[in-house]
């Protein structure tokens, strides 16, 4: 098996694995980072969303070989103390129900706020469309994103 090297949450990591293995399973089963969730494995739900070089993408359909040498960020590394504005807003708005989708939701929202200072309802609808929440927490996700956006806006 080849050794594939990349950074995860600013730490250099190496895994011996088939380059076709989805990043999701490498994170969960080889690196013990279980914060990134499996919801479908087909890119349809967003539960597995991580950042690769700052862009949100579903790790279940991202082959390990494609992240060689790149920077991967997972929910565990979004902030040092769990105090990213989105993480705080999520708690203040009591967003999670079962909570299972929320790591992916937050990672997608974080990439959105990193790239755009201004977000509105339509932009949130569009940017979050790949993230399913089976519990139906969308109204609170929207409110939390708007609150965090207001906080980080320059």
């Amino acid at each position, binding site marked *: 098996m080849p050794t594939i090297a990349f950074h995860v949450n600013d730490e250099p990591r190496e895994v011996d694995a088939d380059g076709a293995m989805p990043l999701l399973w490498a994170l969960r089963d080889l690196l013990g980072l279980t914060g990134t969730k499996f919801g479908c494995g087909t890119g349809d739900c967003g539960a597995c969303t991580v950042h690769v070089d700052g862009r949100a993408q579903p790790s279940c359909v991202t082959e390990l070989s494609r992240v060689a040498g790149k920077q991967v960020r997972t929910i565990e590394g979004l902030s040092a103390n769990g105090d990213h504005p989105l*993480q705080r807003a999520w708690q203040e708005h009591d967003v999670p129900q079962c909570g299972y989708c929320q790591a992916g939701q937050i990672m997608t929202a974080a990439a959105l706020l990193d790239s755009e200072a201004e977000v509105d309802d339509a932009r949130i609808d569009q940017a979050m469309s790949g993230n399913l929440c*089976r519990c*139906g927490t969308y109204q609170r996700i929207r409110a939390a994103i708007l609150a965090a956006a207001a906080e980080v806006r320059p």
Partner: protein
Amino acid sequence: MTAHEDSNRPIAIDAGSGAHPTDTQAAPPGINRRTLLTGAAGLHVGLFIGVRGGATFLARIRPDGSPQDVLAQGAEGAMLGAYVSVRADGGVTIAAPVPDIGQGVRTSLVMLVAEELDVDWESVTVEQAVAGAEFGRQSIGGSGTMRSYYTPLRQAGATGRAVLVAEAASRWGVEASACRTESGRVLHDASSRSLSYAELAEAAAGRPLPNAGSVSLKSPADFRIIGQPIHRVDNADVVTGRAIYGMDARPDNLRFAVVARPPAIGARLQGFDEAAARAVPGVLELVEGVSGGVAVVGETTWAALQGRQALAPRWDTSANAGLGSDTIAADLQAGVSAPSAPDGAATSVEAAFDLPYLAHATMEPMNCTVELIDGRAIVWAPTQSPQGVRRGVARGIGIDEDAVEVRPTLAGGGFGRRASTDYASEAATVVKAVGGAIQLLWTRDDDLQHDSYRPASHHKMAAGLDDEGNVVGYTHRMAISSTRGGDDAAAAAGRRAARVDGTNQAGGGGPYAIAGYGVQSTRVRIPVPTFVWRSVDHSQVNFANEAFLDMLAHAAQMDPVAFRLANLSQARLKPLVERAAADIGWGRDLEAGTGLGIACFQGYGSYVAQAAEVTVSSDGVVRINRVTCAVDCGVAVNPSSIRAQMEGCVADAVATTLRAQITLSEGAIDQDSFGSYEWGRMADMPHVEVHIVDSTAGPGGMGELGYPAVSPAICNAIFAATGKRITRLPIRREDLAGWAGPDAPVDPPPPEPDARLFMPRVLNEAGS
């Protein structure tokens, strides 16, 4: 030594493991909720307060966390318990007796104990109880958790408070009645003395407990925690990725298993390519005979998945080759005959409605992790039935239940699915064959294609109105898909009808003073596995009833809100209908193409009315703008959770009204992903407003309450907007055919469509 000298030491009774997290976030490395779940840190010894049938027990907790000596006293039957331990730093640990599947009981149940114990919420840490008889029935479903635990858990807290007060009073030589409690302290105001619970707990635990029925509970006016919108205790762990779900269990040397499952209902395995599967790097074992298929065990989930693909199993799918959605629809339609409207009615109204199978599709697919060590099993399961998992694993491995410890994890959704324990039995079968530690995972296609579904149903309705618009007769016959049949059918139908509480004709007592209102249910045997889904039969029954009532209102030429108010007999529903209607702005002028609809529901001890504002575009795209909900669930223990349940139910109803359904072709489920089983997304979510009625009545259920009235409210709004009566879900574009769009005149609404097969009919004269 005083209690304060060892701040790490749990003060109650005795210390087991010295360290215990006061706060899962600030816990030292190695001792956080994760290690508690995986058992690396021993649960400490504490004060256990069990309540069984009005009697209260006090017991010591063994280092493994189980209060076995309670059982040793011969306690039998249902016992609802919580254990509370008071630490030297004043922090309190309270066990959540049942699992959390997203409904928030790890927060709301613990609130009950904390309220009566009279501690500050900030001082509370929550632990999850393992599966055990000492906790009584731990399964969750039927929106029964809060209803069954509301009093016992308050009594448990009040009992703890009573012994703490008794201990303080005796130390001071005063009457207990002269003392009060506040924020984890006992106070004697007359002498300005006070003691913390931490200072009292060890001695208090040795005192005789009062009878649970004799302790006084707070009056609602004194509640400081109950009724507050308390945030979920797991929020911080969830948003940082630390929360542990079933799939996150990581015992040492864990291996991963997936199962190649029959591709069609009743398909039989004929062969598979064992060599190819074993040749996949990382594939370790194959286990036959798991749910009719083959389990593949790998070093990683990915290896197991690759192995499953290489297995290329061959199946005989002939058993149900003739089974499809079309044959099922025909069977259901033939399952009940059309009722006729009552004789002598001035106006007769008839209708038929069709509802599809639905999958649960929990966000976290089914999974179970079992570690087998020296004939004992430790099980991590996201489940609604910890004790069912315990039984299933014990049976699957062939060991005693005593040798199985089930640690319920957080669960990524339930909706009824996790009341089954098939995933645990499968994991047990695999671990029995290969030993060690196994995590068995269902993929999303497994989940959608091998669920036990919300049954499909067909409804035939007839009612009559007199000259003044009074309902003079009402019949609702439902044919519902069932895997049971034969001689059992009648008995099952009887049970089924009885379970549709409050709306079945036989039992009467539905919310409307309408003779015959309710449902007569007939099970039609169809080999598609079915099981409970959010709100059980109410999801179908209430859709048909509330859509049909809207038709009756129009036939009576009455406003749908006024018509409901005129016919409702349930006093608790009337103000809710008025409130939901007022909040949506009932009666205001609307743009063409936009309409308002209303529906209501009572069940699970609670009441709700919901109104929807819907806009339909010229090309038949339905957009649900707003839903207002007026809820009477008795005392609102945690309003934030109650709102969340309403929001979630509305989201479910939007998805199942607009898009989601399970269909079959040639005996196989057509949907295999969230691409084909389309659930609602951010852009679909209407704005949801929830009004909760102030009440001190006992709590009602919330998990299912919010679903059954939303789809009919939406479809009634579509009728108001377009004159198109929706009679099947999900809505098809062609069901709105003929709707000319917002530019067409909508006032007065177009008449109901002509009689067509399974479309509603409004006949102007009886018998015509």
